[in-house]
C-alpha cells in the first residue's frame, strides 16, 4: 500500500473542505472494499478522509420514511428492529452481505458510493425507490447509479444518509451466490411501496444494477411468483464470465425473482 495522509475530520463541512482542496484525496467509510483496493495499489490517494467522526451513523423511522445514516454498518441494519419491521427485505439483505466481520465495518454509504456491480445494497435502494442524501443535494436512486463503479456523486460530494419511502407493503431479496466468493452472481430485490411495484437486479448487468419493467408490470397486475417466473430475460447486456454465461444469469434472474416474490408473501 502506498502511504497517505490520514485525516479524520470532526464535521461534514471540514470533510468536504479536505476533498475540495485536494483532487487526490479519497473518502474512507468502512474500508471493506477501499482498503483491499489500496493494498493492491489500484489507487494512490494523497490523503484518506475517514468519515467515522462525522456522526453519520444511525437509523430513524417516521410515518413516511426510514432513514439510514451513511456510516451505519451492515450489522446495525441487519439487527435493527425498526428496519426489520418497516422493510424486512432490507434487513435480510444486510444480514447476507459478506461475513460477520465485514458487516461490522462495512457501511451502506460506502457500498452505494462504490457501486460494485455485484453489491447487494444497490438492488434494494433502486427497488425501494430510495433517495440518496448528500452534503449538496438529494438524488433519486434512478438517477444515482450510472454504470459499473459509477455514480452521480461529484468528487467532493459525500453521502450523508439514505431515505427509504414508507410504508412498504412487500419487500424481499434473493441472491444466487458465487460458490467461492459468496458475491451475488444474481441478486433480485422485489418491492411494493409508495414508489410502486419495482424489481431491481444486481450482479448480472454489465452496467451494474438495473430494473426489469416487464416484471414490474406483471407484479403490479398480479403479485404472485407465477407472474414473474415465466418471464424470459434477454441475455443481452448481461455479464458472462467463468462463473456463469449471460444466458445462465438471465435464467437466474427469473428464478430469483420468483423466489423473492414467494418470500415477500
Amino acid at each position, binding site marked *: *500500500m*502506498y*502511504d*497517505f*495522509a*490520514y485525516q*479524520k475530520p470532526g464535521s461534514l463541512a471540514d470533510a468536504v473542505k479536505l476533498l475540495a482542496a485536494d483532487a487526490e484525496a479519497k473518502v*474512507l467509510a468502512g*474500508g*471493506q472494499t477501499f*482498503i*483491499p483496493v*489500496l*493494498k493492491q495499489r489500484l489507487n494512490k490517494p494523497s490523503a*484518506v478522509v*475517514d468519515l*467515522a467522526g462525522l456522526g453519520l451513523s444511525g437509523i430513524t423511522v417516521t410515518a413516511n420514511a426510514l432513514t439510514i445514516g451513511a456510516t451505519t454498518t451492515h*450489522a446495525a441494519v441487519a439487527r435493527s428492529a425498526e428496519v426489520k419491521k418497516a422493510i424486512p427485505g432490507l434487513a435480510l439483505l444486510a444480514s447476507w452481505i*459478506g*461475513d*460477520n*466481520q*465485514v458487516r*461490522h*465495518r462495512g457501511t451502506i454509504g460506502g457500498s452505494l458510493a462504490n457501486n460494485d456491480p455485484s453489491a447487494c445494497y444497490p438492488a434494494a435502494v433502486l427497488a425501494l425507490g430510495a433517495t440518496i442524501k448528500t452534503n449538496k443535494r438529494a438524488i433519486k436512486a434512478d438517477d444515482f447509479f450510472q454504470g459499473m463503479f459509477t455514480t452521480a456523486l461529484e468528487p467532493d460530494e459525500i453521502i450523508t444518509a439514505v431515505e427509504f419511502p414508507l410504508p412498504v407493503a412487500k419487500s424481499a431479496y434473493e441472491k444466487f451466490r458465487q460458490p467461492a466468493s*459468496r458475491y451475488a452472481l444474481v441478486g433480485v430485490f422485489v418491492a411494493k411501496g409508495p414508489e410502486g411495484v419495482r424489481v431491481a437486479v444486481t450482479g448480472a448487468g454489465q452496467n451494474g444494477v438495473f430494473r426489469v419493467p416487464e416484471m414490474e408490470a406483471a407484479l403490479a397486475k398480479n403479485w404472485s411468483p407465477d407472474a414473474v417466473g415465466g418471464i424470459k430475460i434477454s441475455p443481452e447486456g448481461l455479464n458472462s464470465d467463468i462463473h456463469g454465461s449471460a444466458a445462465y444469469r438471465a435464467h437466474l434472474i427469473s428464478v430469483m425473482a420468483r423466489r423473492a416474490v414467494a418470500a415477500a408473501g
Partner: protein
Amino acid sequence: MPQVSLKVNGKTHSVEVEGRTLLVELLREKLGLTGTHVGCDTSQCGACVVLVNGDSVKSCTMLALQANGAEVTTIEGLAKPDGTLHPMQAMFREHHALQCGFCTPGMVMSAVDMVNKHPHPMSETEIRAELEGNLCRCTGYNNIVKAIAAAWPLMHGQAAKAA
C-alpha cells in the same frame, strides 16, 4: 508520524504509525502480539480476526489509525492472568478443534463474538453460517463447530452467575 492511542487487552498503548499501517501490523510488529495471524491478507480467511469494541473485525482490513481510542482484544487477551483458559479456548482444546493451528486465533475470536451475540442456544447450522468469514485449510470444521457448541453454555452460564 501520526500517533494512535488504543487499549489492547486492557493495556493502553500510544504508538507512532504511518497512515497506511494496518491494525494487524500494529498488533504484530509494534506490540509484538503475534498470536493474531495474517493468512490471505485479502479479508477472506479470518486468521486476523480480533475484537474492536466488542465486534469481531478483520484486522488486515482496518487501518491502525481507525482503531484510535478503541478497545481491542486479541487472542492473547482471552486467558486469565493466571493462565486459566477462556471457555472457548478450553473447548477448542477439549474437542481437538485445531490441526495445524494457523486459523485457530481467528476462529476463537470469531467464535467468542458469535456466542456473546447469541443469548439463545445456537444450532449447528447457525454456527456454521456464522463462521462464514473464517477458513480452515485443514478443513477441520467439524470439531471447531463442536467446540463452539460446547462453549456456548459455559460462556452463558458464567455470564448469568456474574450478573
